[in-house]
């Protein structure tokens, strides 16, 4: 195995182990917050995958919601409560939607691409609100998940879901890191820099875009099904544009350099939200806004660029990922 591949697997394993240990020390409310943040982080991981190919989706609520509803319907209609299975179904359902939608919008760029994704998510929102058979605008409640036949009691179910979330997140982050560092991942960076040249070297920009969109969709579905279980209740707001906006916020705060940063950013968002709700009601959007402005001005590469500075990766590992250029138009 290549040295960098081994390092990626090892980092994933060590991080998973550390987070699992931490889980047994955290209070229940924090466990819930972290689990929910992991769900958000998974969706944002999809967005940074797209960002590496030069695109941003402002409508990831679409796949987040599809993942949640797929898991929710499977649990309530068919009675499947196995958490790993619900996660898998949420991921596959959204991934398939991504594969279907991707080719239709892959030729659009910039604001057109972003607005098309918003439009699609709002169409889904509109449909779900009208579908009274599955709860309409109220949504519906999910049964408690089981884990390989084991039904945890009320005290341990948060921990069980946290453990599941950590394993899923570390696996997803590891897979993404391997993809980013692969030739396929490098091709996505090349697409972002110069589409014309990618085609003139004989590679397909369209394929790269569809692939990234499908990966982002699958990750969105994974996050959606996880949060459906964490919250125990889903409704059409999962597909609302403000939800998508939060995913974009997390992604911009994280930057696309590090796969771990999305989870840190998601946790920052969740913590700011719960603390300001408790101590300074109605101010959390303002605090989040200030965070975002500070990030764009002082840390254009996102939280992930801090990690990179600390870890100091080798010269070949940079792969054209300059943090400095982010967010600024080329001359």
């Amino acid at each position: 195995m290549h040295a960098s591949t081994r390092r990626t697997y090892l980092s994933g394993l060590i991080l998973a182990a550390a987070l699992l240990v931490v889980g047994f020390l955290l209070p229940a409310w924090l466990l819930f917050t972290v689990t929910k943040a992991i769900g958000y982080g998974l969706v944002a991981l999809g967005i940074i995958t797209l960002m590496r190919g030069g695109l941003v989706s402002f409508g990831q609520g679409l796949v987040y919601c599809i993942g949640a509803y797929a898991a929710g319907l499977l649990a309530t209609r068919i009675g499947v409560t196995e958490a790993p299975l619900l996660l898998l179904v949420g991921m596959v359902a959204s991934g398939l939607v991504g594969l279907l939608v991707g080719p239709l919008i892959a030729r659009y760029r910039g604001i057109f691409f972003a607005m098309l994704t918003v439009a699609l998510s709002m169409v889904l929102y509109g449909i779900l609100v009208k579908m009274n058979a599955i709860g309409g605008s109220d949504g519906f409640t999910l049964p408690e998940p089981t884990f390989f036949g084991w039904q945890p009691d009320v005290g341990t179910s948060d921990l069980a879901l946290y453990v599941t979330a950590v394993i899923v997140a570390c696996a997803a982050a590891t897979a993404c890191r391997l993809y980013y560092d692969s030739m396929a991942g490098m091709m996505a960076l090349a697409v972002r820099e110069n589409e014309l040249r990618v085609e003139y070297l004989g590679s397909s920009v369209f394929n790269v875009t569809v692939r990234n969109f499908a990966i982002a969709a699958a990750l969105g579905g994974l996050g959606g099904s996880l949060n459906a279980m964490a919250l125990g209740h889903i409704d059409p707001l999962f597909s609302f544009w403000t939800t998508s906006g939060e995913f974009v916020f997390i992604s911009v705060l994280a930057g696309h350099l590090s796969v771990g940063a999305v989870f840190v950013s998601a946790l920052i968002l969740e913590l700011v939200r719960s603390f300001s709700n408790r101590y300074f009601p109605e101010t959390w959007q303002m605090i989040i806004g200030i965070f975002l402005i500070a990030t764009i001005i002082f840390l254009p590469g996102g939280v992930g660029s801090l990690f990179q500075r600390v870890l100091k990766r080798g010269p070949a590992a940079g792969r054209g990922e300059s943090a400095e250029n982010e967010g600024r138009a080329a001359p």
Partner: protein
Amino acid sequence: MTSDTVILEARDLQKRFGAVVAAQDINVKVASGEKLSLIGANGAGKTTFMNMVTGYLKPDSGAILLEGGDVTKLNPRQITQRGVCRSFQIPQLYEPMTALENVMVAIGASGRRFSFFQPADLNETVEQARAMLKRFALDPYAHRPVSELPGGVRKLLDIAMALVRNPKILLLDEPTSGVSVDEKFPLMETVMEALAAEAVTVIFVEHDMDIVTRYSDRVLAFYQGQVIADDDPSEVLSDPAVQKYVTGTAGPATAPAGAEKEAEA
């Protein structure tokens, strides 16, 4: 080097941009292994010709045949996959990446499949990229972001990336433009040395007539979208129409004012 096999043929190509005639009645046969240069003032239609051959622009009418097969409707990617590669008048590079990474992307793009879980910087890829840089004497720049590199180096890198696929036909759009006069010959020498081992057919746009004479078997002279001369370098350069409209060497009595300046620009 040159054989009798026709590798590329342009038949009756026409292309207009509104009132501008960018290509008119272009009929060209290129023999395999030939070194063909395109000359002509700015706006004469040289780049348009390359854009049509590589599928970036569709001719209004006419056909392009590659090894006898019609490729007129193919896009640049499909043309590239058939072994026609090009460099650009303005180098098309991945700016934040290093020179080495730029070539690695070219290598990746030329592979049929690539693994998602194998790192891009596998030893064999890096070695292949380094070897290509070395052929163009670019190894000192391997780890520099290309946005920081001087014009001539960027030109060479642009060509090196086009060569990764071992193309049958290599189109070079003004390889020596934007480079100081005394750097032009060494640059062209580097390019031709890098190509020496290949039986590649080269079509290049050039404004310096000394380079044209030295490095091409045959010259096409363009004027207002038409090919006004097509022959050996010495024949073309002594053609009165070429001297009048392209090289501006016909003497002060016949040369249009500023023609020389235009041709050099």
